[in-house]
């Protein structure tokens, strides 16, 4: 790694961790640059001849009316909440899965109970008809 990026050698040698994430940071910068550069370029280089039609949100099709920021229905929120809850579930299942080979049967049962408890929540949502869109 040190040969490819000499500056990485400046990081303490035991710090492979830092080096990996520095690469990630470099990738992040490149990715953002890749997206931003064409925009900047076109803003700098492209000729500007604005007209009424060109400035409308959609050059063809129906004229858009009203505000896009409308009040949502509460069902969206319930979906989002269910999403967060199962997302948090993943946070706990992932380390369990990573350590799986060293764990006892008890751990399997414990995680089974964990998943079942949350599945009960899902079943409840389903049967109560929260997931069906009306």
């Amino acid at each position, binding site marked *: 790694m040190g040969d490819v990026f000499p*500056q990485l050698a*400046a*990081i303490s040698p035991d710090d492979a*961790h*830092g080096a990996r*994430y*520095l690469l990630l*940071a470099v990738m992040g910068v490149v990715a953002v640059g890749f997206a931003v550069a064409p925009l900047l370029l076109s803003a700098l280089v492209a000729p500007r001849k604005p007209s009424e039609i060109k400035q409308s949100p959609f050059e063809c099709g129906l004229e858009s009316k009203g505000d896009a*920021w*409308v*009040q*949502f229905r*509460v069902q*969206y*929120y*319930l*979906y*989002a*909440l*269910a*999403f*967060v*809850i199962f*997302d*948090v*579930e*993943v*946070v*706990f299942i*992932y*380390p*369990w*899965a*990573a*350590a*799986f080979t*060293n*764990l*006892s049967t*008890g*751990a399997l049962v*414990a*995680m089974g*109970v*964990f*998943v079942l*408890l*949350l599945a*009960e*929540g899902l079943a*409840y*949502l389903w*049967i*109560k*008809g*929260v997931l069906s869109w009306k």
Partner: protein
Amino acid sequence: MIEGVAFYILSTVAVLGALLAVSRRNLVHGVFALLLFFAALSGLFVMLMADYVAAVQVLVYVGAVGILQLFAIMLTEHVTGDDLRRLGARGWFWGLMLAVALPVVLLLPPLLNGEPPVPPAAPQSTARQLGSQLMEHYVVPLEVLALLLTGALIGAVAVAHGPEKDPPGKDRPA
């Protein structure tokens, strides 16, 4: 050196994001600023060698909590917040005092002594170690947590979902 630079960049972004989040009148913009803060925080976790926590920060906070907050804001009538008077403007002085006092109380003694305290036990944060810790020492909290999440889900339905109907009859599969 490079770690120092990264730290200052990330901290600046985090502080800016947090400031923007509390100062934007438009709540949706506020949430996006908050997401910026979450992302910078995730970077700071990486610098603390807490890889998994950083991943969780992105997965749960940037990914899910941000969405939830956006939905919560879109539920309200005045999304842009323009025609609302600013809430709690009276409390800013005490909030500022608290915000200043807490770091002073926390940081002053270590600063006066030169060295910040090092945690006695080196943090072990890879997912595998977390997993075995979780399964060895924290099984009961894990199950309580599952119950908490289920309770929250059921509670949200009880409070937010429409009025209760009779259980479905034979014509509708349950």
